[in-house]
């Protein structure tokens, strides 16, 4: 099955907007404290069947602890977790309908690839023939048929990752937990594997919960992403919403690159907001809603790719403009990022897609430039 064929199916998938949908995993007011340190602080979350859900956050944000509570390796200090309506409190890991793929892969070094994959099935005391058939199916799925008799230390990193994956899905769990599944792979392999994981999840119809600190990974794969910080969810949204409508400066800054322009609200009516800002030497026009009252501090958040850069001042004087000098140019290949020192202090970044081969840049270091952006290109944040 290819990702292309499944694309439209995925796009329509949004059970979290459907009030009649029954979540598969229900996390209610769960906290976990280690001594005086609170790793997870009263979080609630619903995850739906067949969802690809990502827990994203910096290290130490509590995402791994939350996942380990789902697997049963940690006991919540407070709150409850249920899967398919069954409360998991007091159920040990080996009796839970979840399997986990470990960050270190945790392959049994003394067992061959096929023995590793068969391990969970043998624990379930399935008939021998069925185990053999299932192992073969799994090996085929992860394209490791020829490596069945090898020991883990005779495999490459990518192959080990596949064995770990095959082992964790062999029991066909309701929920598969993936702890930084691609963390140990190099960039190229990681990108390929992201799409393979996606296809696999669709084909198997399993619910995947992935823990990652890599925003690209989460954005590419997940149906919804929960951004975590200090043991709490900051925002739970589909990737596009997370990127275009971050709820706070923290999320805006954590996901991708962003310019945050500080100002005070001078006008806020019917979807039209005006910020008085020194950064631009006047005002910032914005569309959208904000809870901020007149005179409140707010930030206009705009992504670098939505900011235009030009050597000439804009013809229309009412458009959002900031002038400055090119301080640095980051050439990334597909795009170039211009770091501009604004005349009124501060810096802004504008990125331009390199649609042609760069022979000579029209805009160069220390050029006087004008940055412009549309009112609906960004969002007004209050925190």
């Amino acid at each position, binding site marked *: 099955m290819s990702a292309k064929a499944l694309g439209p199916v995925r796009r329509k998938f949004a059970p979290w907007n459907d009030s009649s949908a029954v979540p598969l995993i229900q996390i209610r007011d769960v906290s976990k404290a280690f001594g005086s340190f609170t790793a997870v602080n009263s979080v609630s979350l619903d995850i739906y069947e067949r969802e690809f859900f990502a827990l994203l956050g910096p290290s130490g944000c509590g995402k791994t602890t939350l996942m380990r509570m789902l*697997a*049963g*390796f940690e006991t919540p200090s407070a709150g409850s977790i249920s899967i398919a309506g069954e409360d998991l409190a007091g159920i*040990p*890991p*080996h*009796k839970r309908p*979840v*399997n*986990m793929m*470990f*960050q*270190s892969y*945790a*392959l*049994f*070094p*003394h067992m061959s690839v096929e023995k590793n994959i068969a*391990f*969970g099935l043998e*624990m*379930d005391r399935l008939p021998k023939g069925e185990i053999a058939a299932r192992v073969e199916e799994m090996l085929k799925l992860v394209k490791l048929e020829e490596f069945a008799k090898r020991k883990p*230390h005779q495999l490459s990193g990518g192959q080990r990752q596949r064995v770990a994956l095959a*082992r*964790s899905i062999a*029991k066909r769990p309701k929920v598969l937990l993936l702890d930084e599944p691609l963390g140990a792979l190099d960039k190229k392999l990681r990108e390929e594997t992201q799409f393979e994981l996606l296809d696999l999840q669709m084909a198997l119809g399993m619910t995947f919960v992935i823990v990652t600190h890599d925003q690209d990974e989460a954005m590419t794969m997940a149906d919804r992403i929960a951004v975590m910080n200090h043991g709490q969810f900051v925002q739970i949204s589909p990737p596009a919403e997370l990127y275009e409508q971050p709820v706070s400066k923290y999320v805006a800054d954590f996901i991708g690159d962003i310019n945050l322009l500080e100002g005070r609200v001078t006008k806020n009516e019917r979807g039209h907001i005006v910020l008085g800002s020194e950064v631009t030497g006047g005002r910032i026009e914005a569309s959208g809603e904000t809870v901020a009252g007149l005179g409140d501090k707010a930030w206009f958040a705009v992504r670098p790719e939505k900011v235009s850069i030009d050597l000439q001042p804009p013809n229309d004087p009412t458009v959002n403009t900031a002038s400055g000098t090119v301080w640095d140019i980051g050439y990334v290949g597909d795009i170039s990022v211009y770091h501009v020192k604004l005349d009124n202090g501060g810096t802004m970044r504008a990125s331009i897609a390199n649609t042609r081969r760069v022979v000579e840049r029209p805009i160069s270091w220390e050029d006087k430039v004008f940055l412009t952006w549309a009112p609906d290109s960004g969002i007004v944040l209050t925190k």
Partner: protein
Amino acid sequence: MANPFQAQNRRWMVTAIPYLWMVVFFLVPFFIVLKISFSNSEIAQPPYSPVFDFLIDGWDETLDKLASLTTDNYLRLIQDSIYSSSYLSSLWIAGSSTAMMLFIAYPIAYGMARAPKSWRPTLVMMVILPFWTSFLIRVYAWIAILSEEGLLNSALTWLGVIDEPIQILSTNTAVYIGILYSYLPFMVLPLYSNLEKMDDSLIEAAKDLGCTQIGAFWRVTFPLSLPGVIAGCFLVFIPAVGEFVIPDLLGGSDTIMIGKTMWEEFFNNRDWPAASGVAIALLIILMIPIMIFQTNEARQQEAGR
């Protein structure tokens, strides 16, 4: 031309040092003992013949002397049942105490490896600490504990468990106690170093896939600790077979171990050739477990653990 200080030569010199050490302190003494084991016992100084001195003897006499070497000592090892029973008894005592040791040491090592990280150095220290006292003194201390008027019997009498002192000292039981006590660290430390390295996520993975705690131990922890088990067993078994001090001090007259038999040949009978024969035969017997041990170590290094 060959410059002794060229990189290639220097490397050769570095590897030569351990070989030289082996030749001087192992091979040469080994061949001396081997030669004596083929000699005849004499009441003389030294107490065997022939004694070679090529410079005095010249070719002819040296050849004569070579012809007088004998395999009698080895034939005696086979014919006289005292030797075979000594060997068997030694192997039995060493083997069964190694097995008992495994049962005692494994839980200790496992507990140490599971203990909070900050405790572990202290626990290792406690295992090694007895080594700071002389081995001989520690074995003597057991005499004070095990004798009829010793600490153990007094304590048991005082507690009312026994009416009369029980004889422990000068029995095989005392030898077992002595071996178990003295060699415990040799079993605990290799097991501990193996178990301590074990990745906790392997146990979690086993549980995640449906194993109980006990199941995960037998299917994952124990098989993975086998190199440690083998290392520990041989580190105890090999020296225990040739043990002399413990059976001599704690054992009774009916305790026969090959180390004691050898000592008696050397010092009581002053029969150096027979004692040398006993020693060489012991070496050959132990060669098999030593080779298994070496293969195990090599395999472990290969697996990069």
